[in-house]
């Protein structure tokens, strides 16, 4: 394993990054250039028996996402701090292993706290319907009795 490197070894990363960005831009521009520009009212309607959208697409997200993202950042930083240990794992042996175990144990306490406080439980939407025996509307009952009498 060599320790020194040249700046050029990062070039593939840069090319990948530029390639990724260019791919997105190229496709959007290309599709804009070659797709047919016929705008009729019918093209903007929901297809056949598709649902008509209610409101805009920019809805408010479930706030649970934020808490989960925060928890993710915490454990992200944990993983990042573990990288330097992994590189020199063999040099430090059991001593380093126990040090890192203490590090992880403290963080596991945080995870246990999150679990205990039900921060990991997802908020389920409340069902709008009432469970129980189905009540037949009065109008429908009338129709049925009419049909039975005739």
């Amino acid at each position: 394993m060599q320790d020194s490197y040249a700046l050029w070894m990062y070039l593939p990363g840069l090319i990948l990054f530029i390639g990724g960005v260019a791919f997105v831009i190229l496709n959007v521009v290309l599709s804009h250039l070659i797709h047919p520009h016929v705008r009729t009212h019918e093209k903007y309607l929901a297809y056949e028996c598709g649902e008509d959208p209610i409101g805009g697409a920019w809805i408010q997200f479930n706030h649970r996402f934020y808490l989960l993202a925060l928890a993710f950042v915490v454990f992200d930083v944990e993983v990042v701090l573990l990288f330097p240990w992994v590189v020199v794992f063999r040099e430090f042996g059991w001593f380093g292993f126990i040090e890192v175990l203490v590090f992880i144990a403290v963080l596991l306490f945080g995870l246990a706290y999150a679990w205990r406080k039900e921060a990991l439980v997802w908020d389920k939407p409340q069902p709008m319907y009432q469970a129980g025996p189905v009540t037949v509307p009065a109008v429908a009952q009338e129709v049925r009795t009419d049909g039975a009498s005739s």
Partner: protein
Amino acid sequence: MVDVWLERILFYGLALVTVGSALVVTFGRNLVRSAFALFFTLMGMAAMFVYLAADFVALVHILVYIGGILVLILFGIWLTHRVIDLDIRAGRIQLIPGLILGLVLMGLLGLTIRSFNLAARTPAPYRATASGIGRLLLSTYLLPFEIASVALVVALVGAIVIGRRETSR
């Protein structure tokens, strides 16, 4: 010689992307667009760290700031009700204090940079820094390493406490 020139051109290109996207972040009207422009700013900063021979910092920058903080910012925007339609450019309410603060900060940075004799210094050699950081973290800086985990737990518990208060209404 060609190598040096290409490196220099790449550096200025990356610096242009970083500063340009930072300007979009600051002056953009749309919050979501600003957040996505921040991605390019952070990416450019990671490239600057690579140029500074700090490969581990560059990696951490991408992992934590782009992978974590930026996602957090985007969630924060999308979680906020109806903030997308808002024109959120900061007005000129604090023009004078902002100018003073910016100039003072720029002066301090300039003085700091000038206090180093950059021309007399040889550039740091490019070598992998992760193993050196690992050795120091497990020996000399063991206590800060362990305290970091405590700080992370504090952040997590604090987030849960604040988040729970929101849900209990």
